[in-house]
């Protein structure tokens, strides 16, 4: 049977490739439909995979496979002494896509940069609300409106960002999806034609692939950008075959109907690994799943109690039952692939006896508490309900009674933010820009109390370390500060750090050059397929 299956797969694959005879086509079974093709108004990875990644470039890019920043459409940049001015020197000779709906008359220049950011920054910009309901969630979420004072065109090939306060992660922020560079010339053409909303449906960028067509909820077609500044891609056509169900994606991959698929169901991974002609790549995701106590409420305001509870959790059992081998135990609030990860820190041991003793010492007895379990599956927590049940059993061992609560996702996010929230919350985070600040300040900083800081934890020592790190412009100076902050975190234990998940990417053997992105994106530049 296996042989027969292999033969079939080979024939099917051959028919996919062969009919395209001249053109090399790579088919990616994507997991959902993009919301639009202008990445800036959106926050979903599925939308970014279909828009910012293939179609656009940014001033700064992440070096593929890392969260390190490298020059993109800016060849170089200088930072002023006070950390308030970032001057970008733009790359000359960069061509925008030429399609049946737009033919560029000029190369990329400072006007495009200004257009890209000013439309998000300025409330009165004609493109600020170019289609009904457009809003700039990522730009706002990263506090850009309060951070950026002005964006100045120094000359055609030089742009200066003036900030209100020093911000070390600024360069990494500009490598994010919302900072994808749009064509000001194309925008002007659309504005004149009175078809501004087309910007979100027929995109023009400078990226490795140009947009060809989107058949809603079915397929997205791209063609290699012949004049790409970094060289034409090895493949000619890129197709996203939208396939929502993970089991169906796995079937399509095995039948040769696509070459690469994301997010396999945990139950399918073993089967795919052992299938002929399929390789499963894996990488630790840039994420963390945690249980956040409410550190402003008794008895969780006592670090000793939090520490004791952390020691009652059997992480290995969670990794086995919830992650089924696709996760690693977490000891720090940032993942091990991130720079400044402090590997010298020792995790709290699993020791119910010691935990019980510590609770007694802290004068806590007959404790009953709530644990919030998310209603959705997330990369950092594939099954929060199951995780909550395991923790419930662990806590029962040390005499703590747990009630599990859950609610609709939007409600969960809102109510878990409240300072007077009752109980500990299961949640997690996936990094945006690979900067430790994006974890430590967002999730544990004092500004996040009542918001993204679910532990409602504001620790003076920790806060001064991360604030200090934020204004240092050299990475070398920032590392020791973040390492120290992780020590404080571990001592104070506002969370039980649970796991970093592993991400899997199954693909057929003929695909080469695919590099997994620690930030969770899917990129196809540099990818080739053997004929």
């Amino acid at each position: 049977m296996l042989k027969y299956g292999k033969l079939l797969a080979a024939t099917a694959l051959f028919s996919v490739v062969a009919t395209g005879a001249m053109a090399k086509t790579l088919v990616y079974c994507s997991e959902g439909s993009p919301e639009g093709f202008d990445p800036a108004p959106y926050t979903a990875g599925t939308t970014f995979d279909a828009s910012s990644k293939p179609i656009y470039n940014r001033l700064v890019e992440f070096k593929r496979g890392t969260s390190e920043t490298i020059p993109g459409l800016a060849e170089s940049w200088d930072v002023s002494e006070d950390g308030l001015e970032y001057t970008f020197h733009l790359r000359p000779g960069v061509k925008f896509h030429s399609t049946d709906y737009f033919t560029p008359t000029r190369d990329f220049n400072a006007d495009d940069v200004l257009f890209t950011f000013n439309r998000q920054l300025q409330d009165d910009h004609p493109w600020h609300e170019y289609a009904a309901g457009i809003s700039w969630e990522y730009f706002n979420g990263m506090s850009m409106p309060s951070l950026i004072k002005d964006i100045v065109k120094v000359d055609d090939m030089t742009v200066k960002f003036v900030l209100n306060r020093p911000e070390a992660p600024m360069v990494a922020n500009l490598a994010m999806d919302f900072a994808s560079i749009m064509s000001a010339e194309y925008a002007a053409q659309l504005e004149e034609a009175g078809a501004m909303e087309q910007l979100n449906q027929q995109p023009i960028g400078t990226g490795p692939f140009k947009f060809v067509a989107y058949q809603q909820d079915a397929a997205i077609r791209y063609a290699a950008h012949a004049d790409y500044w970094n060289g034409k891609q090895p493949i000619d056509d890129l197709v996203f075959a939208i396939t929502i169900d993970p089991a169906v994606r796995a079937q399509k991959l095995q039948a040769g109907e696509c070459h690469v698929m994301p997010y396999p169901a945990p139950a399918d991974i073993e089967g795919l690994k052992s299938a002929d002609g399929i390789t499963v790549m894996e990488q630790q995701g840039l994420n963390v799943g945690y249980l956040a106590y409410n550190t402003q409420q008794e008895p969780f305001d006592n670090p000793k109690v939090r520490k004791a509870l952390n020691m009652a959790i059997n992480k290995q059992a969670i990794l086995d039952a919830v992650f089924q081998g696709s996760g690693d135990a977490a000891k720090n609030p940032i993942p091990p692939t991130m720079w400044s990860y402090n590997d010298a820190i020792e995790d709290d041991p699993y020791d119910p006896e010691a935990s019980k003793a510590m609770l007694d010492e802290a004068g806590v007895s007959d404790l009953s508490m709530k644990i919030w379990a998310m209603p959705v599956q997330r990369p950092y927590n594939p099954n929060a309900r199951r995780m909550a049940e395991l923790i419930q059993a662990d806590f029962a061992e040390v005499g703590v009674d747990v009630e599990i609560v859950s609610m609709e996702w939007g409600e969960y996010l809102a109510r878990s933010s409240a300072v007077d929230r009752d109980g500990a919350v299961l949640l997690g985070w996936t990094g945006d820009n690979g900067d430790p600040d994006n974890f430590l300040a967002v999730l544990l900083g004092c500004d996040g109390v009542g918001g993204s800081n679910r532990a409602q934890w504001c620790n003076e020592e920790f806060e001064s370390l991360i604030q200090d790190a934020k204004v240092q412009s050299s990475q070398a100076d920032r590392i020791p500060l973040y390492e120290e902050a992780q020590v404080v975190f571990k001592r104070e234990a506002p969370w039980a750090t649970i796991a970093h998940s592993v991400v899997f990417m199954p693909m057929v053997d003929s695909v080469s050059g695919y590099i997994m992105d620690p930030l969770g994106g899917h990129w196809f530049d540099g990818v080739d397929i053997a004929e």
Partner: protein
Amino acid sequence: MLRFFFSKLFLIVPTFIGITVVAFGFVRVLPGDPILLLAGERGMDPDRYAALQQQFGYDQPMFIQYFNYVLGLLQGDFGTSISTKRDVLGEFLTLFPATLELAIFAIIFALVIGIPAGIFAALKRGSVFDQVTMGAALTGYSMPIFWWGLLLIILFSGVLGWTPVSGRISLLYFFPQVTGFMTIDSLLSGQKGAFQSAVSHLILPTIVLGTIPLAVIARQTRSAMLEVLGEDYVRTARAKGLAPRRVVGLHALRNAMIPVITTIGLQVGVLMAGAILTETIFSWPGIGKWMVDSISRRDYPVVQGGLVLIAGLVMLVNLTVDVLYGLINPRIRHR
């Protein structure tokens, strides 16, 4: 007849109002907030939240929101999707042909197999054929669509490799959408093999979506036939020496079809519900998947507009069936 038609049509007005209320209320009764979902884990500060509420008009009292919504509907404005920022009616019209094509194939599949199976089961009442057919129909009726779909994919696409796994047509073919029906568009495109590809992609989803209507129609046909076969006029027809084929085909079947047609009309609603799951499994780009996505994103305008459009269509089909029923069975009109 005209009076009958208008009396039916008149009933549609209150039904339609009811639908707008339900469609409007339904998404708002569900816990969850489209604006908070936009932000995800990141969260949103209260000022920003208030500004967006105002931008979307969700800060206004419910009845004003409802009034604006109905006013829009009356002017043919179904709103703009919060997530894609596109016009709801436009999205519906792009996606609906895919659902319609699948539904048509599914209902044809159900009729072509269900009616003869029901007739033969009735004629051979109590036989092995009858028992097996009705047993199979009951099984088909109780089959969870999701499981059934995956099972067929694994068997026919995975193991046997006879059918494609999912989608509407092989990705090799690419042509503009003219009618939205892939079978027709593929013929119009003139690309070699496109039509065959479109048909082969239809096989499994048609079977999956058609299974429940098939089971219902087969059972309904059987019981209607059994009832009619016992009638005096059938006995008379037999007694006057008509060929059995004429007795069954002409006298019995025509009368037995009356309740069956009503059933078919009712199956349209079932097909719409089944389409949601079938489309999800087979990555079929129709309105089922569109509605599911929109409900989970709490995309109010799409859910409100989409529900009204779908409900309107179901009503239209039911009206047609009622009228058809009146034509076939004159007694109904005069009641």
